[in-house]
């Protein structure tokens, strides 16, 4: 019994060693990003491997990047893009998901197969025509242009449909006896029950929009009208070797989402994990 217990303790210890080393390698890029952002340029390019910490914690790089790169605009654009995409996606997908999951209507199977086809096709195939449409609409360098391809979501419809299918059948019967029409049943009874699927879709949509690089680069070439991701790409071209400034920009761009993740961890993990690899 003693040796069994000792063996178990050793196993646990080894697992912790592995997990700690792995955690460390996951965190190093983040730590290095933040530490470098506070360093002077000379310190950041020091070849002494033991200059890990800045000699003095200077916010200069943050303030330089903030003013010379209009970070306020980048935050605002990213926030608005995310907000509108989440509202559009959750609203349209929850309606369509309810219809596909709970109602019978002509052409249902055909329309649903279109949803499945869209989910299988790589999104790059849509981009050239989407760009041409946005430019014809005069939406280049606007929030509307950023939101455009995310106005509806096949994946979200699929997700919400699954959510609605999981609800018990008698709910609607009880409601229709009470004299509710389908719209009222949906709004008052059914929709509140799929709140967790809606939250998952909302978070997935937000993170996906936040991470997207190609679309904002294509439709928003102006430095003040683009998003954080695409803004970073632009900055890298300009400050290519001022590492404290680049890392300050990367820190500022990453921080909001990381803070939100740490607060709403459970919802984030669920929301992203339901995405089925689309991220």
């Amino acid at each position, binding site marked *: 019994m003693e040796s069994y217990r000792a063996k178990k303790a050793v196993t646990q210890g080894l697992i912790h060693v592995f997990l700690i080393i792995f955690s460390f390698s996951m965190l190093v890029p983040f730590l290095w990003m933040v530490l470098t952002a506070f360093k002077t340029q000379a310190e950041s390019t020091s070849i002494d491997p033991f200059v890990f910490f800045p000699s003095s914690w200077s916010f200069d790089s943050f303030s330089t990047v903030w003013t010379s790169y209009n970070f306020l605009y980048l935050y605002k654009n990213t926030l608005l893009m995310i907000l509108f995409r989440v509202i559009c996606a959750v609203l*349209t997908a929850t309606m*369509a998901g309810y219809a596909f999951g709970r109602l019978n209507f002509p052409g249902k199977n055909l329309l649903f197969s279109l949803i499945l086809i869209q989910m299988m096709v790589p999104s790059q195939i849509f981009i050239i025509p989407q760009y041409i449409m946005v430019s014809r609409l005069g939406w280049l360098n606007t929030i509307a242009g950023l939101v455009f391809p995310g106005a509806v979501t096949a994946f979200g419809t699929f997700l919400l449909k699954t959510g609605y299918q999981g609800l018990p059948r008698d709910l609607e019967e009880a409601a229709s006896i009470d004299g509710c029409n389908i719209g009222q049943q949906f709004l008052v009874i059914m929709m509140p029950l799929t709140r967790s699927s809606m939250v998952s879709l909302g978070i997935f949509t937000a993170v996906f929009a936040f991470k997207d690089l190609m679309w904002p680069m294509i439709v928003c070439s102006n430095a003040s009208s683009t998003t954080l991701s695409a803004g970073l790409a632009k900055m890298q071209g300009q400050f290519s070797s001022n590492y404290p400034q680049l890392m300050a920009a990367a820190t500022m761009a*990453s921080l909001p989402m990381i803070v939100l993740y740490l607060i709403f961890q459970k919802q984030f993990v669920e929301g992203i994990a339901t995405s089925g690899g689309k991220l």
Partner: protein
Amino acid sequence: MAKGKHKMTPSEKSQARWGLAFVAPTMIGLIVLNFYPIFNTIYQSFFKTGDFGMGNVFVGLQNFASVLGGNEFWRSLGNTFKYALIEVPFSIIFALLLAVFLNRKIAFRSGYRTIFFLPMVAAPAAVAMVWKFLYNQQFGLINNVFGTQTAWISDPGIAWISIGVIGVWSIVGYNMILLISGLQEIPHDYYEAAEIDGATGVKQFFKITIPLLSPTIFFILQTRIIGALQQFDLIYMVMDNSNRALSSVETVVYYFYTQAFTYNNRGFGAAIVVSMLVIIMLITFLLQRAEKKWVFYN
């Protein structure tokens, strides 16, 4: 379903009305944003884009002939597969280890999970910038700590591995989360029975865990292969135009992006992306056939 064989009852009628009204925004959106673009991209792939986007000229299959007849498409396709060859297996193997460890009663479990999942919420643009700095030949942390002078991202022989490592780092936590939820569905009695029969932990892992987890593993494998074949962000952010290793890591989507949007060669870009679509569809089809063969379903 009412197929006109009988008159619809009022309740069926109202379901049909509400149903169509509820799917209308999504369906109209998908037609405008996705289905029209699919056909339009295919259409454009038969045209040579005129100067300033004006006066496109019909060229038949010429774009396809130059895409498929040229080196760059096949090279970038090969690079894309090379990237997938690093990202997919390693991110799954590490994720499997982490998932098995974190599925036990172990201290700081949720802390570890939080850390491993962290890259999923970071923008790839920011992640790539940091890694580019870490890999820097002169000032990079990696060379400094190990006292090496390796050109991690500008040596054509190494760069594809370095990029793949960033990919593994970015996705391993995501795979881990999916595997943990797969593990939690395996009934405990299986392990108890194995324990009574005297099966060791390693044996249990290969005889119980792996087979019962195979649907989850296959799902991840499938989605990650398709995802890896669309890699763009890392290449775009890490590789400068002047990087001599660029041609050894440039992916298909990167090639598409530069042709369609940097050089505004939209017809040519369309031909690249249509060719890619065919290849991805083919791979999806093959994976689905493989699934029937290899995956163990209860």
